[in-house]
């Protein structure tokens, strides 16, 4: 029996380190690794489920080809690679390399993913995507205002006197943060949750404010107006570090009473919250990503961030704006969100005509050359992209689709060839985190089952078949030893960071600020915190100041707001298919308030039809006192076979900045399905 330290590479805040025991090429146990101070108690249920996931009998471990009857048949890896290389070279000859869409999701992070980029460059290029479905509006908002996107180390939350969890649900999406919040609370910290729903996180709070979805920016600006009018701001901090305070102050037009009208939060409580913030220093605000998945998302984040700024709650222990902490993303030449829309020249030979947000529409309308083939890895766009109907059609219209997957997902099901994907224990890699400050090494510790090949090896064999010139420093030869060498090279030059050091356990990112911005240096054009950002206006055409723009999607035919958050048992569409998740956690369902359910004569367990002008889906209902009136909650990532597919109802709409997707501006009606 051997034991290794590894880390979870999913698209999740926590990026847990954990110890893993291996017996006869089988993962037998998973333990916490207390050396990672952000996740000392170990991974969540999804992390534990790797014991099942890695060895699941549902895993695809041989290449599959779709037959003319639509079923999949097992083929050898050699045959699969031959078919793919024939198709790729034919499409390249006929239409050029840009006729291939190279689609990458966020299913598994790591430096090794760069190897794909090397392959497609030597292929002559490809069409890739721009924007991001998750969080770019908020990232861009923070970047425009503070210059960088970072926050204090997670355990610094224990020093906060007030924690405002604004639209985040760490109990289900970042569970280790709960320990720090709980610890702060024991020391007397006040915990406030702002969320339309009564989340499990709110069960741990002193107070829950439930605004209408999409109105968080108005709530923030109303609080700001109270803070300024009652002179509860940090004048010294503002004078020293903030650009545009006077302009911001003059622009505030939302009074608490107006705030009440917009958000549904009584003016009295808006006053109260302003006082809590002013009198409860240090204040940590923890915004989530759901509240910026509105078309006004960027401005919402800028508005909430203004509260931390004008009260001087930045750069101090216990104070901060914890949107994302990219301090461990040290290897990227171009950091998020800028990497989502890089400079065209520098991005050559990639062509970015397809947005993540409008994937289907953009795929269909791309010309010169049009798209003819697609390569999908680490992603599930059929389920996760808005406007699913268009996405399904766009992929169906292609001549050839390759999907690299572990399970027969809704996206894998559209593949002409499915290549089995590696699991996390089957190749070494190095990963950062957007919450934890560690750089983690993830060792290759088991042999992949069947004919599973890591993408890097798939690309190597394909490059051989296609006769591309192979530079093994870019496209290493098969074998985990070669990947380790490649990694060693990749991280050369970063001080104190070597593979041998990383193998001992996670390493704090070089240059880490435990307390972000404690040096009061802001990499903005003015070198100050920019409440007034001319870059925002220039680049995105929005007001240079934080501003609330009311939602214009109201429609009396569709009175309910649909929100599609993440649920405890899955990361987007991953993990929900595993037995241990299915048997431990509640079945997925669409949740309705008792009020709205009664009005429509719906009870728990009913099959319901959710519909709007975009489309309709049928799923199961669950009545929940945690859901407020006027909202229906259908977690994203539920497979179509389980009654998911909320994205069929969601139109592809950009957020105001950052090319994100405004998932949560969706209105629907619900009825009992006969």
């Amino acid at each position: 029996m051997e034991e290794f330290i590894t880390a979870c590479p999913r698209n999740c805040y926590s990026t847990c380190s954990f110890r893993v025991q291996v017996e006869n090429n089988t993962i037998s146990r998973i333990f916490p690794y207390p050396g990672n101070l952000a996740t000392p108690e170990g991974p969540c249920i999804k992390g534990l489920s790797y014991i099942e996931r890695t060895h699941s009998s549902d895993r695809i471990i041989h290449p599959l080809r779709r037959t003319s009857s639509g079923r999949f048949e097992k083929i050898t890896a050699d045959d699969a690679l031959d078919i793919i290389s024939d198709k790729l070279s034919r499409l390249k000859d006929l239409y050029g390399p840009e006729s291939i869409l190279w689609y990458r999701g966020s299913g598994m992070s790591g430096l090794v993913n760069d190897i794909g980029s090397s392959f497609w460059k030597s292929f002559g290029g490809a069409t890739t995507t721009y924007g991001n479905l998750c969080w770019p509006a908020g990232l861009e908002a923070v970047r425009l205002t503070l210059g960088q996107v970072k926050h204090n180390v997670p355990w610094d939350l224990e020093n906060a006197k007030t924690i405002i969890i604004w639209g985040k649900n760490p109990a289900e999406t970042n569970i280790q943060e709960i320990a720090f919040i709980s610890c702060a609370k024991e020391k007397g910290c006040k915990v406030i949750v702002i969320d339309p729903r009564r989340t499990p996180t709110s069960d741990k709070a002193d107070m829950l404010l439930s605004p209408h979805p999409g109105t968080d920016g108005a709530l923030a600006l109303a609080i700001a107006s109270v803070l300024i009018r009652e002179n509860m701001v940090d004048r010294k901090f503002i004078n020293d570090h903030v650009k545009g305070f006077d302009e911001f102050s003059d622009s505030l037009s939302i009074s608490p009473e107006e705030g009440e009208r917009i958000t549904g939060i009584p003016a009295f409580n808006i006053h109260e919250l302003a006082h809590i913030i002013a009198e409860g220093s240090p204040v940590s605000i923890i915004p989530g990503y759901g509240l910026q998945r509105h078309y006004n998302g960027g401005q919402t984040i800028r508005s909430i961030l203004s509260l931390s700024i004008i009260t001087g709650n930045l750069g101090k222990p216990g104070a901060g704006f914890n949107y994302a902490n990219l301090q461990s993303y040290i290897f990227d030449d171009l950091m998020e969100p800028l990497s989502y829309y890089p400079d065209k020249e520098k991005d050559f030979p990639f062509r970015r005509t397809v947005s993540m947000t409008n994937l289907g529409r953009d795929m269909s309308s791309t010309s010169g050359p049009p798209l003819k083939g697609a390569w999908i890895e680490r992603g599930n766009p059929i389920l996760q992209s808005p406007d699913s109907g268009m996405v399904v059609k766009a992929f169906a219209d292609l001549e050839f689709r390759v999907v690299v997957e572990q399970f027969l997902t809704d996206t894998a099901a559209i593949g002409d060839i499915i290549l089995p994907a590696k699991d996390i224990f089957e190749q070494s890699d190095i990963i950062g985190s957007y919450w934890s400050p560690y750089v983690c090494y993830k060792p290759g510790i088991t042999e992949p089952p069947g004919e599973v090949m890591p993408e890097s090896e798939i690309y190597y064999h394909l490059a051989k078949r296609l006769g591309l010139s192979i530079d093994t420093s870019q496209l290493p030869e098969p074998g985990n030893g070669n990947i380790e060498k490649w990694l060693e090279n990749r991280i050369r030059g970063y001080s104190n960071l070597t593979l041998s050091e990383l193998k001992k356990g996670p390493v704090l990112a070089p240059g880490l600020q435990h307390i972000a911005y404690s040096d009061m240096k802001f990499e903005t054009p003015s070198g100050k915190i920019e409440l007034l950002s001319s870059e925002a206006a220039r680049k995105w055409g929005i007001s240079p100041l934080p501003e609330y723009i009311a939602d214009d999607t109201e429609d009396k035919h569709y009175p309910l707001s649909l929100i599609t958050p993440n649920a405890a048992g899955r990361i987007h569409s991953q993990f929900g298919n595993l037995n241990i998740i299915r048997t431990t956690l509640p079945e997925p369902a669409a949740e309705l308030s008792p009020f709205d359910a009664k009005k429509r004569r719906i009870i728990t367990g009913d099959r319901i039809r959710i519909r709007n002008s975009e489309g309709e889906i049928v799923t199961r209902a669950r009545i929940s006192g945690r859901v407020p009136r006027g909202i229906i909650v259908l977690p994203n990532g539920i497979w179509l076979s389980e009654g998911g597919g909320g994205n069929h109802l969601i139109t592809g709409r950009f957020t105001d900045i950052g090319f994100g997707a405004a998932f949560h501006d969706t209105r629907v009606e619900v009825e009992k399905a006969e």
Partner: protein
Amino acid sequence: MAEGFIFNHNNCVACGACSAACVLENKWTISPRTVYTYNSPVLPAFPVLNLSLACSHCKTALCLEGCPSSAYYRETVTGAVVIDDTKCIGCRYCQWNCPYDAPKYSPEDRVIGKCNLCYLRVKDGWMPACSTACPTGALAYGSLIRQEASERVAWFPDKGLEPFVELKGSSRSPLRIIPESRFDPEPDLILKKAALIDKEWSLIAFSFLTALSVARLISSLVEGNFPDPLQFLLLIVFAALFSLLHLGKKNRAWRAALNLRSSPLSREIGLFILYSVSAVSILLYQLPVLLIVTSVTGLFLLIAVDAVYIFADNRKAVFLHSGQTFLSALLMVSFFTGIILPFIFIATIRLTASVWRLKSDRTEHLKFVMRFFRCALLIISGISMITKISYPETGVIILFLSGELLDRMLFYIDFKPLNINRLINNQIIEAEK
């Protein structure tokens, strides 16, 4: 100093990691560790509380004491109360006896699975899998401190079994919600009563047929004749078959009488076997002395049947229930033999007990109707007996026995072994009032 699970409800968000870790470590088909969320319908006057609970390996282990097949034992090094699932007969009596819901029945394995404290790991100096896995630090395993009454979590029922568990966490007030008007609680979810008679049909049949057979026998004794052999034998055989139906592992039924020392259920089965053997011997030898011996055994058997439930119900709420088999059999005897005074005496006791319960049945329609008919049938058959109108015609006997059967069914509905979830939910209902 004793070791046990230490749980801080402040940190628990019901993520399920402990429960999953338990299954992954022990390869169960059900998880012996459950995370309960109290007030999941989020009624406003009570906080939402999470509790991760497996087995507390109580000093007074009722599961172990009550187990008829001696499947339970206490592991000597760690003190863990462990069930050997190769000995479990799947009778689920331990589920009635444990107020903390620790034994879990696996429909797939048809035996009980229960937390074994990962005692093999603990012996090796590790922690149980669940406490190792908890990602928020809510669940730990270690030396327990003696908690003062004021330090104990107020909502956790203490039943004097000395569980090896320490519950921590600040007392919580209900969440302040702004604006309250956006949320509607779903009170139906919590106020919904437990299903009427859940899978206990076989036990109803067994206990009713046993009481009836004893009553037939004693009636014969009183009347100075021998019971109809075929009818009498059928009653006993069917009673035995029905009791088998209740078991998850029927082929291990013989184990049920292995714990006469401490299990009321074992004693019941032991006496049933004795009674059956004795009954067969009457049919073979027709000796009056055997009739007397068997009748006495039968009466003891009925006391043992009732004791099974009284042991599990440690609030003694079924002690005075009118559906007890002993009383029922005595009433049957006086009815069958037509002896009026004892009939009136026993019927009065039982009617009083029923009417007293009728008061609290008003919220539960079906129960009210059943109890009403039960009383009516007893009165009708009593009048028929006293006035001799239609008595002893078969119709009246059927009416009378239907009333007795109804009472036995009501007994199972009213029989609610002490259970932490019910107790905490009662606190929530109280708070809402």
